[in-house]
């Protein structure tokens, strides 16, 4: 059994033959496309470790069947940097120590990129904390995460057409 879908994955069009209709986007990325940057933390939409952008919106890739994504545009952690130039959110996480073990970090960063694009939090720490609360960090690097999102939000607000756009 094979099921054909077309995805734009980090800017590149991909024809994908699915071997199984049960495959989630997360397991497609991790086990079939050799893109393990997106992490599995709970596999049921409770922790946010698997957050990616689909058509610009942040979603839990563990709750999304790959077969439903024909024609979609998917952005993962591997697609954020431009060569060696980190995305402002990535750089901000390093600058503010918004990570410890790093396992939830790809999801945190994709969620932050999504949150900033939503434009609802700005650089207000309280709203950032709320908007980032779908992403659990067991190391509890929350203080640094909040500072990182604020730094990136300010930077991207000042330079919306730069690398951040």
């Amino acid at each position, binding site marked *: 059994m094979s099921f054909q879908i077309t995805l734009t994955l980090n800017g590149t069009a991909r024809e994908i033959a699915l071997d199984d209709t049960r495959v989630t986007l997360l397991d497609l990325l991790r086990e079939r496309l050799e893109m*393990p940057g997106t992490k599995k933390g709970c596999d049921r939409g409770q922790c946010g470790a698997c957050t990616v952008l689909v058509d610009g919106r942040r979603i839990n890739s563990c709750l999304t069947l790959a077969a439903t994504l024909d024609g979609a545009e998917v952005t993962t952690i591997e697609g954020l940097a431009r060569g060696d130039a980190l995305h402002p959110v990535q750089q901000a996480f390093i600058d503010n120590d918004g990570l410890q073990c790093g*396992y939830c970090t790809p999801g945190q960063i994709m969620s932050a990129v999504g949150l900033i694009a939503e434009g609802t939090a700005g650089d207000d720490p309280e709203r950032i904390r709320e908007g980032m609360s779908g992403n659990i960090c067991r190391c509890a690097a929350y203080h640094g995460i909040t500072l990182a999102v604020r730094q990136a939000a300010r930077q991207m607000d000042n330079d919306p057409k730069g690398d951040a756009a």
Partner: protein
Amino acid sequence: MPDTLTRFGSNSGQPTTRRDGIAKVTGQATFAADNHPEGMLHAVYVPAGIARGRVAHLEVEAARAHPGVTHVITPGNRPDLPGDPDAKPTRFSFRIEVLQDDTVRYAGQPIALVLAETLEAATEGARLLAPRYEAEPPRTGLDDNAPFAVEEPGFGAPGDTVHGDPEAGHAAAATSIDATYDTPPQYHNAMESHAVVAQWDGDRLTLDTPSQALAMSCAAYAHLFGIEAADITLRSPYLGGGFGSKAIPNGPMVLAILAAREAGRPVKLSLTRRQMFGPVGHRGATRQRLRLGCDADGRLTVIDHETLAATSTFETFLESASNASQGLYASSAIRSAHQGVRLDVGTPGPMRAPGEASGSAALECAMDELAQAAGIDPLEFRLRNYAETEPGTGKPYSSKALRECYARGAEAFGWADRPARPGTMRSTDGKLVGWGMGTAFFPSPMFAAEARATLRADGSATLETGGADMGQGAWTALAQIAADGIGLPLDRVELRSGLSTLPDGGVAGGSGHTATAGGALHSAGGDVVRQLSELASGQPDSPLFGAGNATFEARGGRLQIAGDDGRGDAFADILARAGLSELTGSGSASRPDADSRDYAMNSHGAVFAEVAVDPDLGQIRVRRLVGAFAAGRIVNPRLAESQLMGGMIWGLSFALHEAAVHDPRSGRILNADLAEYRVPVNADVQGLEVITVEEDDPHVNALGIKGVGEIGITGTVGAIANAVWHATGTRVRRFPIGLADLLAAE
């Protein structure tokens, strides 16, 4: 032989950003389950759905018939395991469940394993096994079984200790309290679930699996599989959190490795979140009774701390909570005692601040209750009972800047303005506000580690030890120490770690990894510097020729006479004259017995909390949390602050969030997922402040490092609970404190 100074260069003490930061923010850091070797099978196991009894039937044929399923392993056909999984070859070994028979000892125990070509097929195969059981009534609460006497509650922890005369202390008390505190089972829940990718090549085994103790894990796997530890390559470059749960091999990992040998193909097993509640350790439940007394001046006459703690039916590890009362407050008499209860649960294990976290939670609440009963400010009460030497033993502390922690923390928090009476502070939005504090306390152990240093002709170096970075920042802090040890700038030093074929880096646990592995790296660098000194002082063309009796120091890639900046020689030049392409040194670190005998060594701190409680709904929010800590030399202030904050948030979680709840009928955990096993999210955390108090400790180890990984939990739990009392006047003695506790009290 020339002397070389143990000194710190400019690398330690710097707030360097994480050296693994770019790998982690770009998704390039490879965690165990990210590996996918050619020909790999996926393993999924079936967790027991009862807590006690036996498996009566599995639909093996249905599972086998599912497309893609290649193997179904049950107790009936499990391949032989050379080592006995019920033996304890070392004191750090746990008995594990690897399909020995059809007995179920706790809910979540593996009862069968399915291998398949895809994860989807393995998952469905496991579901199709549809187990039927013969169940017996489960025992999952502390009252469900008779207590037993405990000799060693945790690794090396004493079960009963008495100093002075507790009965006389009770009799002499002018004011006393007798209070009992309950702490629930808690589960580590690292974001990365336990995982392994196992590959056999004959009797050689390669494992990608997160490990907090690489050499110890290899020894355990070697025992179980009847091979040499040297034939195992364990790769653990990054751990997605450990918190104590990834130090000791567990049943599911062993089953997956066994399955890989049986299948003759690589096998990956990654636990589901639900499976993280059972076979991979947890912090066992406790009930702690504290009877404290003080004289009319508020000086403690007795601390009497009894713990009843849960363990499994087949192991002994439990929370050594009472020992938290041993080293902290001066008292005429101190008694700590433990009893165990055998329950149908997975074996508890070390979880961030094992023993100390639970014990400190109860002790700091009890101290608050006694202070209130005696009419003394809680901070003043602790100062009156400040221990100048270790209570009981009289040993001097290697260093102890706790008084300064109290002062700096109180100042930053504004503690002086605290009204003594509870329930008197209100926020502008009508919430009840309360302030509480607690003392933080954690031992500063060292383990044993080895390291190797290689200096190359171009003046760069590689330093190696099989250490573990589980988020604490070992890749960075150990590199800083290594660079100082060999006298090079950080960017000239490559650190190799996280690999079992390197020198044994010891255990990343007990808050002792930086001191131990760092000590070994520093010493290996020092060995290279000593060799350079010998070479240079014998080279006629060297500016250091003939300086063999001088004391040398190394920095910035140069060897110099200590205190004489003008006279020195470059590493590269010394090697070139000697015709060497590289120079290798080795080092090790552990604590000399005499130091342990002569000094008490601990990190200390003071934590202050402000909570706001909704008077109608009972909802509790921590609004401010200030912690001041003295933990010896801080190698990297940025990373140390993150560790301390993380620990404080774990304390917040202990106080207000975390608890596993068992269904008393099935014995299963009702909330075995991240939606209902509540851990703090970002919105739960605000107003955090960490202050580090300088401490120069000449005794704890050559580097003066005490460790910061665990102490943040201690003190914090009590501080928050005490703040809840101060806000509401209601003393809740059961963790986590929830709104129901406050509403019920009305």
